[in-house]
């Protein structure tokens, strides 16, 4: 047994390759066998199991066994073998050019050509070292692999039933489900490749591959709106690709090397680091590049979930987190990175308040959280860095869950408008409960998201400029979540226990994520203390950071999170007791409508007459006419125009980009 395990440790690189290749193979298989529905379902289950088990196995193996604890796992190959990376890069760039020609978009072709030129130039300039570290797994990578595996597999399982329904009323000209699954499953493989690769040519290969996959998935349903939005996503991300390859070219030109170890923090590498960060902003859809992520909402919901929670946008913040610890001495540079992040945090939260479209609210909230991660990376304190890491992890689970819930609600209700979500606890009890868990986890004290926000604010204390943005942004966050949570809870009294029609795969995926949210929520403090802080301490080079972090973090670590959880538990138990012993049918009254209630309580309790569960709110108006009350939240529609505010925000963020460039040029001298 031991021998098997030990030999497993020797095979980590094979597991990694399998994790990248197997999803692509399984995706192709699903594409080929899409007509056989049972087999297709089986393959999807298999793929999600492979991703989940493989991801966890990879994390475990790369962490090393007891005798041989390795913080960083590397795979070194000879230079000629490393050329494979260049071949793949060339292949993917050709694919990009092909797509550009096919959709007849000159800009994409132009950007693709620049990328190809840069890639070829950076390959042939200078000399290659004798051996290359092509894959490298450290703590940051492990978190992202876990996120992709755990959340991605749940989304994949959810998509089984969703796509079945979706197929039935898919618009004219929609792609086949096989096409969908091919790109969907390959996406996860590419993401794992992206975070694990160390060599720039492999990195940009996977970078472009995720861009192309997202382009294909956004355009899945065909039609003009999808085409426009998919093109925009491709265009913006290609621009990011140009920045990325430009940085690689610059590094190569200055003989700095061709992998992430070349970003040492020396002054010559500051400009490429900035270009990397800007490329990351396009991928993470921070202001001013936010438009592609909002447009991506036209895709089927599992795609949005995958883009937002598990993969695409996380790649961007991953890059920033990867680079930023080495550049802490360039204060103004880091300050501007943090400023861009904080601007996105507050701006996106503000715009989320004006939206009634559930998916758009989620999209803005994602941008807002990613902005917070970038701000954390820029603050340059180990505490903030740890907070950023924990946002990446916890946000993925909560947001994945929420997107899946919205997807399900959208299919059942036929609308993604928050205003239409009335009587949800009666119509869809399970989904509502799960969605409430997801939303609570965004705001409730012990849960990861709030913990991270808390630590971020505490870590920003010495940069007053950022603080204003963080404080206002967090107030807006409470505002838009509160509106939505209230809407989800609107209900009447029902004597019978409502039952929801839900398929097993959907219930499994939602329940799995919800349990994950609750469990991680309960153990947040512990996870944070033992995982994220130590990681952050190891990440920052130099000094005795472990000692420093414990002194910094001692106050926060003592917070008695168990009291909060206990409080929650006591209230729920007491509620159960009250419901069992105090709630009697004779005590139920309809709400106060000045006595003009149009329906008696008997009628309301009669399920025959009150199918929607909402008739109790009808009232007699002038002349005995029965009116149905309709309520709406504040959306500031008359005060704030989304487009105009976005335009202003974009101007400010372009301005901050220019300042960023200025800071970098100043720091080179």
């Amino acid at each position, binding site marked *: 047994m031991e021998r098997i395990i030990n030999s497993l440790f020797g095979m980590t690189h094979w597991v990694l390759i399998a994790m990248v290749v197997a999803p692509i193979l399984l995706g192709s298989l699903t594409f080929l066998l899409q007509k056989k529905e049972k087999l297709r379902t089986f393959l999807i289950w298999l793929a999600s199991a492979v991703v989940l088990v493989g991801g966890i196995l990879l994390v475990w193996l790369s962490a090393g066994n007891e005798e041989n604890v390795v913080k960083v796992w590397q795979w070194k190959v000879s230079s000629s073998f490393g050329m494979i990376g260049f071949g793949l890069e060339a292949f993917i760039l050709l694919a990009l050019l092909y797509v550009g020609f096919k959709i007849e978009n000159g800009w994409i072709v132009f950007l693709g050509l620049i990328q190809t030129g840069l890639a070829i130039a950076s390959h042939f300039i200078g000399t290659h070292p004798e051996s290359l570290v092509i894959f490298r797994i450290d703590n940051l990578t492990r978190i992202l692999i876990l996120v992709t595996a755990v959340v991605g597999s749940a989304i994949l399982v959810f998509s089984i039933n969703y796509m079945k329904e979706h197929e039935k009323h898919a618009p004219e000209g929609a792609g086949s489900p096989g096409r969908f699954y091919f790109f969907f499953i390959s996406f996860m493989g590419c993401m794992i490749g992206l975070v694990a690769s160390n060599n720039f040519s492999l990195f940009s290969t996977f970078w472009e591959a995720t861009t192309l996959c997202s382009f294909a998935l956004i355009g899945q349903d065909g039609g003009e709106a999808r085409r426009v939005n998919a093109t925009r996503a491709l265009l913006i991300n290609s621009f990011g690709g140009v920045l990325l390859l430009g940085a690689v070219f610059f590094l190569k030109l200055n003989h700095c090397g061709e992998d992430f170890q070349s970003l040492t923090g020396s002054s010559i590498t500051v400009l490429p680091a900035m270009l990397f960060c800007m490329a990351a902003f396009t991928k993470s859809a921070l202001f001013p590049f936010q438009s592609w992520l909002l447009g991506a909402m036209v895709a089927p919901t599992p795609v949005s979930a995958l883009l937002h929670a598990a993969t695409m946008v996380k790649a961007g913040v991953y890059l920033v987190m990867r680079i930023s610890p080495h550049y802490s001495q360039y204060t103004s540079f880091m300050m501007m990175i943090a400023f861009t992040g904080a601007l996105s945090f507050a701006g996106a939260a503000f715009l989320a308040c004006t939206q009634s479209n559930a998916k758009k609210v989620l999209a803005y909230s994602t941008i807002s959280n990613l902005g917070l991660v970038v701000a954390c990376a820029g603050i340059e304190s180990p505490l903030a860095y740890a907070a950023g890491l924990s946002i990446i992890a916890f946000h993925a689970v909560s947001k994945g869950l929420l997107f899946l819930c919205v997807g399900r609600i959208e299919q059942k209700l036929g609308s993604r408008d928050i205003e239409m979500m009335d009587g949800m606890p009666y119509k869809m009890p399970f989904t509502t409960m799960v969605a409430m868990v997801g939303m609570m986890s965004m705001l409730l004290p012990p849960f990861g998201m709030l913990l991270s926000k808390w630590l971020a604010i505490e870590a920003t204390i010495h940069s007053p400029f950022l603080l204003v943005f963080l404080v206002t942004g967090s107030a807006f966050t409470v505002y838009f979540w509160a509106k939505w949570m209230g809407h989800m809870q609107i209900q009447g009294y029902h004597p019978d226990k409502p039952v929801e029609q839900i398929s097993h795969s959907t219930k499994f995926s939602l329940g799995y994520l919800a349990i994950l949210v609750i469990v991680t929520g309960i153990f947040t403090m512990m996870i944070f203390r033992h995982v994220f802080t130590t990681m952050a301490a190891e990440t920052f080079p130099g000094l005795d950071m472990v000692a420093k972090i414990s002194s910094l973090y001692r106050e926060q670590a003592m917070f008695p999170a168990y009291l909060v959880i206990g409080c929650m538990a006591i209230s729920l138990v007491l509620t159960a007791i009250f419901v069992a012993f105090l709630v009697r049918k004779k005590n139920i009254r*309809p709400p*106060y409508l*000045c006595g003009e209630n149009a329906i008696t309580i008997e009628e309301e309790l009669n399920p025959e007459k009150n199918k929607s569960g909402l008739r109790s709110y009808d009232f007699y108006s002038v002349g005995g006419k029965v009116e149905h009350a309709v309520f709406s939240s504040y959306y500031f529609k008359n005060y704030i125009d989304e487009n105009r505010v976005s335009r202003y925000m974009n101007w400010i963020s372009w301005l901050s980009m220019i300042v960023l460039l200025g800071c970098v040029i100043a720091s080179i001298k």
Partner: protein
Amino acid sequence: MSKFTGKSPWVVHFNCNSCNGCDIEFLACLTPLYDAERFGVLHVGNPKHADILVVTGSVNKKNMHVLKNVYDQIPSPKAVVAMGVCAATGGLFADCYNVVGGIDKVIPVDVHVPGCPPKPEAMLDGIVKAVEILKKKTKETETVTEELPVVIVKPKELPAEPAAPEAAKESEK
């Protein structure tokens, strides 16, 4: 518990079909001159928080279900004060075609305060009397109102449109 009930009677005021005379006088009770709050009286605007329902005016066919609804939404123990003669018997309006009569036709009444309108002192006295009755009631002595047919006065239906002239001519032929 009855001790506390007596010390904090929260009042909801319902204008049933009144000429507003009693209402103005009743609101005058809250002014510094009469100061109903020294008895712990709070004028809450809704039945769900109230202990005492003060009704002014007679009941007509259109608002009897409203009165009953408001009464039913008060958590027991609760007391009802019929303020003024209209609330007691229908008063001046008793013979109107649409008037049902005093409010005791619809809900049980504990205290009648006579007058048209009653003086504020009489009103305060009525409320204090109601408090005495309220103290004796408990949660269990809830008076269930009988089920009333909901009477809604609907606008008169418009007469059917006269047939179009062509159609009329055709029918003549």
